[in-house]
């Protein structure tokens, strides 16, 4: 089996090839992920802020949408 390798990246959960590479629609591809890259995106469920004093940085100003004039 002849194999060609192209570089790409994941964007919005989809693999996008870099540059001008265009493959035929429904072309079969194999995705190889360098181990180092895969480790960079940990799945964080119910995350906690490690420094709780920083929680104040995320206080929200809440505006009723009816009062959204001029925004």
């Amino acid at each position, binding site marked *: 089996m002849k194999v060609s390798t192209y570089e790409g990246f994941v964007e919005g959960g989809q693999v996008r090839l870099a540059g001008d590479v265009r493959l035929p629609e429904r072309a079969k591809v194999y995705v190889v992920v360098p181990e180092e890259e895969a480790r960079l995106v940990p799945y964080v469920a119910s*995350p906690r802020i490690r420094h709780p004093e920083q929680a104040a940085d995320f206080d929200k100003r809440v*505006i009723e949408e009816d009062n959204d004039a001029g925004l």
Partner: protein
Amino acid sequence: MPAYEVGLFNPPAPLARVSLRNRLSGRIVHDVPMLIDSGADVTLLSRASVDGLDIATDPNIRYELMAFDGTTSTAQAAELDLIFQKRIFRGRFLLTHQEVGFLGRDVINHLSLLLDGPGLLWQETQRLEKEE
């Protein structure tokens, strides 16, 4: 009435659809899926959703997060409007590379939400009276 998401989560989970807006340009993205997560201290937005808003982030400002198992990671933040349940939540939000974001307590503590697990539905409800 919004339904639980059964395709992405097992068991099913309450999923909200929000809009995100660049305050300066007015650019907006709609229908952004967010897991309603009362265990999350703060809201995390999918970076893919925010990228469409062209919001500049400062790579030097990062926040350290801790997962339930004690593992840590860091996240960048962006200033924007999150529009949900006829309210605009204006402020700083963390960004995640995950496909679905989390609606954390910085947002959901402003709302009264009823989770109907058996019915796989959720809705905003009236505030409850405190029992004496």
